[in-house]
């Protein structure tokens, strides 16, 4: 059952992906959840001869990719109801599905469409929900993701993150003509858009809290500088080009400041906060070790960061307000770096290194020292939480090719996002 589902999902995804599949990311499920919920998402009907968009397929792909649901194969559906009144529940009980989703995509006028859907519990025939979304043609895919989000939240009890975006770096070619691209795409990899392209390395993309801009590091002048680029206009501003290191930009929660890493004349890396409006620069760390990879706390009062002041890299937290000493957070193992806190700041994800390589680990911030290693690759890094905190996206390697991967925070669901032609790395997940 699972292999068939996987094959049909891959075919469906590539079909939907369309013609311009350059650097298209394709989702592969590597490990689903054993108790995934069976759900039937019936192809939506339409008053037109054909629905304008296959909403049910995108919903099915989203829910299936989460690993929490096992969508029914269309070929196994014995009936195609498009509204609640048409559902013969006994038939669906026989097919062993727990839930059924039915709906329609109808044109309202020349430019707008109406997506309508209903969700029923097959066992007790209870109607869980029904919604209508109005959309233009271009918004039908986004509308489908929103439907998936609503169903996911209703049944699982956690907000879905299907209607969100990711940014990542894609690299093609070989030295001396490597090409680096900064790409923004839907969370499932569809609709990739090149934001920036360079013959020199690009690193560390970071979403502004409002999702309108990306900060990143570019070596386009053979030395590192930090840029902030507005996605809609393409306009960009070079915000830090100090001599030496300019790295690791991280947005404050109010979007007005960047924490970043600079170096002194003798190469000592420390963390600073740059006010994007006033251009004032405030030093946060001041010790001889490498201090880098900052991330802000939710209240904007502290930064989490990596420091090797104790010998090897470990993760610390430092208040920005007072001159308090930094508080060390990681104590297991000799290499813990690149902190990222969950949106509700209850968990800390990071890269942990041991003899078998570099893996993604997660630590409960409330219960000190409760560390779980989530991944088994040799070169796993760059973890980033989805905005619902349920899943982490990270960089991995699949047979020497750079890929992106996802893992649920309990480690049970794993996926890969593989590019058709590029090495991909450094994913960043936009907030809601």
């Amino acid at each position, binding site marked *: 059952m699972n292999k068939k589902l996987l094959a049909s999902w891959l075919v469906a995804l590539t079909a939907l992906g369309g013609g311009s599949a350059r650097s298209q990311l394709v989702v592969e499920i590597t490990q689903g959840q054993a108790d995934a919920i069976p759900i039937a998402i019936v192809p939506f009907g339409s008053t037109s001869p054909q629905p304008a968009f296959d909403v049910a397929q995108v919903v099915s792909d989203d829910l299936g990719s989460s690993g929490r649901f096992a969508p029914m194969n269309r070929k196994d559906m014995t009936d195609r109801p498009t509204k609640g009144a048409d559902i013969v529940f006994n038939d669906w009980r026989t097919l062993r599905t727990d839930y059924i989703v039915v709906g329609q995509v109808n044109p309202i006028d020349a430019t707008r469409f109406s997506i309508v859907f209903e969700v029923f519990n097959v066992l007790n025939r209870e109607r869980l929900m029904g919604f209508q979304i109005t959309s233009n043609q271009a918004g039908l895919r986004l509308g489908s993701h929103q439907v998936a989000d609503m169903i996911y939240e209703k049944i699982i009890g956690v907000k879905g993150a299907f209607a969100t975006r990711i940014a990542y770096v894609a690299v093609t070619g070989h*030295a001396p003509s490597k090409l680096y691209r900064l790409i923004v795409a839907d969370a499932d990899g569809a609709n990739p858009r090149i934001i920036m392209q360079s013959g020199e390395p690009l690193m560390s993309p970071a979403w502004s809290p409002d999702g309108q801009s990306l900060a990143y590091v570019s070596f386009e002048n053979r030395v590192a500088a930090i840029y902030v680029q507005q996605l809609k206009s393409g306009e960009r501003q070079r915000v830090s080009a100090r*001599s030496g290191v300019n790295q690791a930009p991280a947005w404050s929660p109010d979007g007005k400041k960047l924490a970043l890493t600079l170096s002194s004349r003798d190469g000592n890396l420390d963390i600073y906060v740059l006010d994007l409006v006033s251009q004032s620069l405030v030093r946060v760390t001041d010790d001889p070790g*490498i201090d880098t990879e900052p991330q802000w706390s939710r209240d904007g009062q502290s930064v989490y960061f990596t420091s090797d002041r104790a010998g090897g890299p470990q993760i610390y937290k430092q208040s920005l307000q007072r001159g308090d000493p930094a508080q060390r957070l990681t104590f297991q193992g000799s290499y813990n770096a690149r902190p990222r806190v969950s949106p509700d700041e209850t968990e800390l994800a990071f890269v942990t290194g041991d003899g078998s390589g*570099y893996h993604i680990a997660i630590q409960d911030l409330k219960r000190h020292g409760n560390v779980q290693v989530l991944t088994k690759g040799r070169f796993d890094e760059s973890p980033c939480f989805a905005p619902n905190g349920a899943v982490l996206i990270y960089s991995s390697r699949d047979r020497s090719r750079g890929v992106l991967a996802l893992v649920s925070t309990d480690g049970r669901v794993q996926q890969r996002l593989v590019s058709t032609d590029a090495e991909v790395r450094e994913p960043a997940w936009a907030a809601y």
Partner: protein
Amino acid sequence: MKQFLATAMIVAVGLTLAGCPKKPAVKDNAGSSSTVPANAPSDASTAGNGPQTGPATPFGEGSASAASAALSGKIIYFDYDKIEIKSEYTRVVMDAAHVLVAHPAWKVRLEGNTDERGTREYNIGLGERRSQAVRRALMLQGVADGQITTVSYGEERPAAEGHDEAAFAKNRRVEMVALP
């Protein structure tokens, strides 16, 4: 005789690089044309299409190309997780230092690199440590601070694309680049 010539050549080259005698920067060949346009008509009646030359630019000691020749290609390799300059690279550092001390106007950029293990931003820090180690070694030999800039590429510009120890060893390096 051969040995004498060989030695003389080495000495001559050495003198050129070391810049002991003072010589004019521009070679005295301004009179000869560098190129004639390939399809220039030989008909003399066509005014303005005679032999043309571009501006003479400096060549020889004191020029960017000589600095480049002396410094570029100098690479110092490092052991895993180390920033110490191994004894087998002392010579490389000394040679570069001599060149820079003799030409106070020349500048060098030290580009620090790491292998791909570990996080990218932390590796920027490690690469910078390596550049700084070479910078300190040059300054100990008398090179002026103002002649040196450092940059770190971390793991972003590997020299070797593989994922094994052989590739890692080629990537842990500082490269010297002469700046114009």
